[in-house]
């Protein structure tokens, strides 16, 4: 082919120009149509999650029946029976509430301390570096590893539990909040300062909402750490004062070789975890970061 530029112009100029009206698009039917019932059911997130649960339960039940050894691996139905039994006689509810009370106290104090630490940290560059160093030091330290120390300092009881929970919550939340604050876009900061916002009002009205996706992630991680730490700590030092928590419930059942009750305790731990994650935090996300388009 001859690469003469004039021939290219000639070929572009030689073809006829045209203008037309847009054609009628009615022939493909509605431009927008609702999905059919089957499509909606299949794409529904909770339906998908439920399917996973049902399959897991079926596998559990079938395997346990095949094994037929309730000391090693009780069936799902037996676990559920024990679970209901302990709920109706109040033991499990009592244990769960003991755990949740301690958890709420530790989680709350941990959050308050994290808020205090990050407020100091954002106030100055030095503060940021101090907090970064502290979180880098303490975040990888397992809370359970502090339990012996807690026992020496605070003795056998709720204060020790609260101490290890605070440790597990504080650094995770502080780390996330601080990194959230630091990633707030400069333009957004400037438009806040532009209207004269300073100090606590600036943090409360601009930084916290702008960093909310990170803060929420921190709250979720902190909650999971706290719950895990609490159950484990209760297992280690068992009953405090008169009533033990859910960890103690599991530990007691193990001593009695009552595996179905161990399973029912584990089931409770899982159910509470699922509830907090997929009901409480899910609702919080839907009302905030999802609504604002800051997270899908």
């Amino acid at each position: 082919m001859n690469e003469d530029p004039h021939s290219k112009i000639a070929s572009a100029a030689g073809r006829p120009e045209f203008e037309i009206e847009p054609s009628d698009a009615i022939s493909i039917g509605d431009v927008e149509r609702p999905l059919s019932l089957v499509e909606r059911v299949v794409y529904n997130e909770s339906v998908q999650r439920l399917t996973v649960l049902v399959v897991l339960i079926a596998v559990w039940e079938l395997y346990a029946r095949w094994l037929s050894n309730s000391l090693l691996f009780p069936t799902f139905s037996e676990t559920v029976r024990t679970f209901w039994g302990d709920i109706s006689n109040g033991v499990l509810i009592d244990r769960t509430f003991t755990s949740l009370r301690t958890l709420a106290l530790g989680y709350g104090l941990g959050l308050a301390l994290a808020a205090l630490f990050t407020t100091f940290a954002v106030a100055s560059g030095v503060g940021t570096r101090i907090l970064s160093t502290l979180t880098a030091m303490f975040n990888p330290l397992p809370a359970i590893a502090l339990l012996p120390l807690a026992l020496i300092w605070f003795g056998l009881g709720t204060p020790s539990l609260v101490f290890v929970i605070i440790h597990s919550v504080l650094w995770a939340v502080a780390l996330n909040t601080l990194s959230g604050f630091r990633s707030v876009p400069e333009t957004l900061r400037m438009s806040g300062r532009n209207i004269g916002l300073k100090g606590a009002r600036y943090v409360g009205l601009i930084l916290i909402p702008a960093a909310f996706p990170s803060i929420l992630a921190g709250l979720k991680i902190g909650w999971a750490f706290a719950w895990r730490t609490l159950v484990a700590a209760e297992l280690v030092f068992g009953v405090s004062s008169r009533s033990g928590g859910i960890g103690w419930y599991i530990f007691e059942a193990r001593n009695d070789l009552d595996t179905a009750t161990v399973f029912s305790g584990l089931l409770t731990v899982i159910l509470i975890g699922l509830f907090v994650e997929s009901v409480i935090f899910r609702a919080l996300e839907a009302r905030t970061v999802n609504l604002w388009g800051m997270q899908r």
Partner: protein
Amino acid sequence: MPPVLLEVNGVTLQYKTPRHLVTATYQVDFSVHQGDRYIILGPSGCGKSTLLKAVGGFMPPVEGSIRIRGREVDAPGPDRMMVFQEFEQLMPWKTVYQNVLFPMKVTRKFTRAEALARTETAIEKVKLTKFRDVYPHMLSGGMKMRVAIARAMALEPDILLMDEPFAALDAITRRAMQQDLLALWDQLHFTVLFVTHSIQEAILVGSRILVLSPHPGRVRAELDASKLDFSNVDMPEFGAMSKRIHNLLFGDEHHRAGSHKEATH
């Protein structure tokens, strides 16, 4: 002649990067009168955005002074509302309505009833009434920019500071936004200080144009563009002005072909 609103006298601006001390502008003088559409025009890196930030109160000058209505600028304040190029300037956790209302609520410049009424009017002026309860992430770039402009104007600042507000928009939207801004100005005659690197935008939008030299920014010229707008884009005087600015900016390096492309889109 309308009164002088903003006086910039011998302003030198410097900022530090981790490795350098950069002089952004050197002894810049200019004054903006009430009702001006005052453009700061210059090539990339001439310190024009830094100059705007200094007027906004985000950066103290190393020498010289910035006065608004005779009062020294020493901190950011709602009398100088900024409109940025980035869409992140809107608060993603607030609807269009709440975004526009927010500065009036914070500054308490107006009573509550007044603020609500002004919010409605401002949203209507930028033609977003249908989208008032929508969150910013649902809006297009042009719409977000209109919200930012409505938010700034609703507060009725002494001067509107716009930092290349339309640079991130596509060419068609940018043109519409320029026309809308001029239409708003025709109604309200607000004072605006507008930074751009586009010669065409400077002539279309501006009534006065301050031309800055490349790095560090020094004043090269101040021109009157009040008679040039969309109605005479094709006229020879528009082309002549464009050429004049072009020579001011790039005259000394005219032989370098293609170097002007960046500044003329």
